[in-house]
């Protein structure tokens, strides 16, 4: 994960020490360390899964359907078609993370500029607020339903629907941070010095808004992971037979009584990933909180 290497500039000479202080606080928080390790492992597995998965995820084996976990060669058992559950979970997690990253990237690419504009230019604020209201009126699942109706269900459409639904949240935090920064002396000084608006936004506002954007991203990713699972479960996301944690649960629903592991394990993985992100996000927010310094 590259989360830790994002530069976090802040006003004044405290810039470097602030970053070191945040990192030190994270290192001292056992929850942060554990969740970070979990996420790093998950990232490695997800990246390498096409090569390290023990079996071909599509390969059916009707002689060995519903093998329980612990079966030789199938550590986590097999499903109704005799496919290896471990391999499918590994590739499913990869797909989950991919959709989540795509979704969050979409929301940031659209949301950050709009949030900056809404906070910086008074005249844009009202228009962007109406746009935000409009987006909020379409919950991600309804958005996905609409997109699926128009363009068909797919991984991309799932990511786009989730991403669009996350835009209002990004706009909100970036807007309020921009308003805060705009009121600070060093930004005001740059404006007085005659710096152009774009320059001020790019040089002074955006770098200092990085930390709130980072925190927003760490809470958006687990939400996106859950969103992807829901959409795939309903058949609005990744299409079978491609492995996805959501579709695995959907098919496991049919034979859950016979092979409960197939219904339990993918859910545990989804929850573990989301939990690790949420825990790390909380720790990051605490570490970034300047109030943490005071008593």
């Amino acid at each position: 994960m590259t989360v830790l290497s994002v530069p976090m500039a802040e006003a004044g000479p405290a810039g470097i020490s602030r970053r070191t202080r945040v990192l030190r606080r994270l290192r001292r928080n056992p929850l942060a360390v554990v969740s970070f390790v979990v996420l790093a492992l998950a990232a490695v597995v997800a990246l390498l899964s096409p090569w390290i998965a023990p079996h071909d995820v599509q390969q059916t084996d009707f002689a060995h359907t519903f093998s329980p976990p612990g079966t030789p060669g199938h550590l986590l058992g097999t499903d109704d078609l005799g496919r290896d559950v471990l391999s499918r979970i590994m590739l499913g997690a990869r797909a989950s993370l991919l959709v989540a990253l795509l979704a969050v990237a979409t929301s940031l690419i659209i949301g950050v500029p709009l949030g900056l504009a809404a906070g910086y230019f008074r005249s844009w604020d009202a228009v962007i607020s109406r746009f935000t209201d409009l987006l909020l009126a379409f919950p991600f699942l309804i958005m996905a339903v609409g997109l699926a109706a128009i363009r068909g269900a797919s991984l991309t459409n799932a990511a786009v629907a989730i991403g669009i639904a996350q835009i209002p949240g990004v706009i909100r935090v970036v807007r309020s941070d921009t308003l805060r920064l705009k009121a600070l002396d060093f930004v005001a000084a740059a404006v007085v010095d005659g710096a152009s608006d774009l320059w001020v936004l790019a040089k002074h506002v955006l770098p200092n808004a990085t930390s709130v954007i980072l925190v927003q991203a760490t809470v958006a990713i687990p939400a996106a992971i859950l969103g992807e699972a829901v959409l795939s479960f309903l058949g609005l996301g990744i299409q079978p037979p491609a492995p996805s944690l959501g579709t695995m649960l959907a098919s496991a629903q049919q034979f859950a009584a016979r092979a409960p592991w197939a219904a339990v394990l993918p859910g545990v993985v989804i929850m573990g990933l989301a939990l690790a992100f949420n825990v790390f996000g909380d720790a990051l927010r605490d570490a970034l909180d300047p109030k943490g310094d005071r008593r």
Partner: protein
Amino acid sequence: MARYLLTRAWHSALTLLLSTVVVFLGVRALPGDPALALAGEDRSPEALEAIRHHYGLDQPLPIQFAQYVGRVAQGDFGVSIRTGIPVSSMLTTALPVTVELSLLAILLAAALGVGAGVLAAVRRGRPAEWLANGLALVGLSVPHFWLGLLAILYLSVAAGLFPASGFVPLLQDPAGNLHHIVLPAVILGTGLAAIIMRQTRSAMLEALSSDHVRTAKAKGLRPRAVITRHALRNSLIVVVTIVGLQLGGLISGAVVTEQIFGLPGFGKMTIDAVFQRDYPVIQAVVLLTATAYIVINFLVDLLYSVIDPRIRVTGEPA
């Protein structure tokens, strides 16, 4: 206050108009001939022509939009391609289920979330806070449809405590209705409860360290009075707003929950429609969701102004 409400009403109306435009344009963007989509079984050229004329598809877009709004305002969402039943009557049967499910979920989530949030804030740094925080994190991270699957698997099928699926209308058999709907409502409420808990906790922590709570303590009030009258009341304003904003998530959640528990609500109707390419139904669902979201958030704003006197009486000279 009047001015605040007028502004909010105007914004809501504008958003409603814009979302109608979006849905209208979305329908135009559907693949294929909309007349074909609306035709259902009878696809003869004459029938298509009649449909085009009836729905004004031969008119310019703005006129089509005006006609569309007119029809929708009368509750005419067209006829389901699959069943031939008017979409409005499908909604009449499906909506009560979803509304009941959602209200029950909100109620449970609010009770649990506010209670745990207050507890976590008041018992700061003690085991109770850790437990509440941990549960909230899990509630936030667990895919609730999976929780639903497990609940069916272990509580309904294996233990036989609840019916695994199906529904009895409330008016027909209230006890049976509750028996069918309580488990889905709990499952649907988990995520919301976690969000409400976290918001309540941070709002309470902020309120508890505020100047007016310090005043309340300096007055010699009991901790209970300080917490309920001076901290919680102010925190509830935040919670009400959160419930309004989380409505979208709740609607999404209701769709999945109904699907898992086989509740014949709005969500099940939606998913069935997507796979049957039942465009009139999808269109009605999307428009209705947006309308519900906008209207309910306007009501939340009204409620907000009732709770918070700063909004209720603005403009009055000091």
